């Protein structure tokens, strides 16, 4: 079976600094993989390379077996590759509902229409509200995104990714910046994602990683250090040394 997402020998430098080195990564359909690694390991850069924000200097990215290395970011998104951002990227001056309608509209090509009123397609609105319902955001549907507390904005970020109906979903620290009293809601959502979607999650909180992931990839200085099941990673002495050992003095949430 072709993997949902396959990354082959990906390389990228920022000037003289190699930030991604010969990275191989495979997400099977329905995968639940966590990407962990110390700050500056190149986790977000890898997400940017996979989604097309950055171009690799060598290597390939395959989506369901198709080479998308040369495709634009938008083209990859239309083929079913969705992501959330470490720092919210939302339409802050629009309502929550509009954020979702826009996503559905762009996904289905409605936004090519210059003449029909946006509100006249009830199924688009109903679908958008469906995503809000599933994340308990319906009561905030008519609020501007910028009026919401950060934790709820984080949910909008996830709702948008879900509305893209992705086959592969990359979550870049979904609970970052959210008070722990609210983060469980986000993690519940992540745990309840459609089992068909292949998910790669970047996360610093090891409790979340071990609860959510079936496989873990450890990235150190831009290269894959090791991969394995949560149990294998937990018992790997070297991983403990380079990464888990930092648990005691884990500082910020910077990728």
């Amino acid at each position, binding site marked *: 079976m072709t993997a949902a997402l396959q990354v082959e020998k990906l390389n990228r430098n920022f000037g003289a600094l190699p930030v991604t080195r010969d990275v191989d990564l495979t997400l099977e359909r329905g995968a639940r993989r966590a990407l962990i690694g110390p700050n500056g390991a190149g986790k977000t850069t890898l997400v940017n390379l996979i989604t097309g924000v950055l171009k690799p200097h060598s290597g390939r990215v395959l989506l369901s077996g198709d080479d998308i290395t040369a495709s634009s970011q*938008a*083209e990859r998104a239309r083929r079913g590759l969705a992501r959330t951002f470490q720092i919210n*990227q939302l*339409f802050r001056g*629009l309502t929550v509902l509009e954020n979702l309608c826009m996503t559905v509209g762009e*996904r289905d090509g409605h*936004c090519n229409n210059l*003449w029909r009123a946006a509100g*006249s397609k009830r199924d688009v609105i109903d679908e958008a*509200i469906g995503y809000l319902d599933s994340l308990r955001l319906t009561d905030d549907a008519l609020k501007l995104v910028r009026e919401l507390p950060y934790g709820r904005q984080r949910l909008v970020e996830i709702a948008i990714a879900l509305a893209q109906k992705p086959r592969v979903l990359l979550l870049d620290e979904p609970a970052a910046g959210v008070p722990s009293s609210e983060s469980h809601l986000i993690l519940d959502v992540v745990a309840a994602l459609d089992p068909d979607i292949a998910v790669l999650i970047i996360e610093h909180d090891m409790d979340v990683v071990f609860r959510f992931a079936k496989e873990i990839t450890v990235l150190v200085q831009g290269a894959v250090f090791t991969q394995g099941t949560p149990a294998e990673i937990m018992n790997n002495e070297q991983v403990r040394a380079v990464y888990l050992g930092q648990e005691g003095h884990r500082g910020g949430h910077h990728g």
Partner: protein
Amino acid sequence: MAASETIGATARERATDYLAKRHRFRLAEALPWLIAIAVFFIFPTRMTFGSQVLVMVMFALSLDLILGYAGIVTLGHAAFFGVGAYTVGLAAARLDWTEPISGLFAAAIAAGLVGFVTGWFLLRYRGLTLLMLTLATAILLQETGNLRSDISGGYDGLPGLTFKPLLGVFDYDLYGHTYYLYVLAVLAVVFYLVRRIVYSPFGQALTGIRENVRRMHAIGSPVHRRLVTVYTIAAAIAGVAGALFTQTNAYVTLTVFDFDNSAKVMVMLILGGTGRLYGAFVGAAVYMVLEDYFSKLSPTFWQFGIGLMLILAVLFAPRGILGVFERFGTYLAERKRS
């Protein structure tokens, strides 16, 4: 449980309702048109000035489409106004093509074409780079006209243009009554088009690009295509405004391409309020009436009054005159609720 379900359902219905009805015409929207018609009867001797105001409303409206909705910052919008103005000017002076309405279509096509080509190259850039490139476009067009002043008439312009009677029937009168109604009718058609676009899914996508272009890329929006499309439409509308300008004034010079013209239309739009459709009406009307008033008050120092007005507007109405009304409206609504 039942109670919370009802609340959930109403929130859902309210949300659906809001989007489903947002594009409907509201009663207040008749106001600017009623005023425009009233002006026709109240100020019969000021119709030429009235036509100029309406032309600037259309010009500002075209800028609102790209600046207010899509967030494209440009200082060269006069380029398209100028192309439209010269299309009908040259057609009349050099080709003896003086039928006014077909002239408008020709102007729209010519300006739209220039918008499409320049937009295709320029809209990969944003911010200051785009600002400079749009400015340069207008200057290049102006200088091209200057280079071939044998055709364009240079800064002396193409004076004394005459146009055929409207629809072959209505001739132009001394006070410009016909022109005023003609420009108003064209404005109404253009406004209807713009309004449809703004409330369409495409218009929604434009606001998305304005609000967060990174997110638009991430959800798969063909951003460049969207921007080029709206830029072309806005250029065509600016071209129609320019064509009407030439037709109402019966002459045109290269000053239509001036940086002044680009800056003025932007000031009008910001004064009225961007991204609001009617901001163009309020801004252009207020600016031009005040300019007219100040220049009669003091023919040498009238720009002082304009400058003062702009400072006051930026300080006390950063979201434009319509923004002030909006804030007042929400204030009243909140007082009523509590």
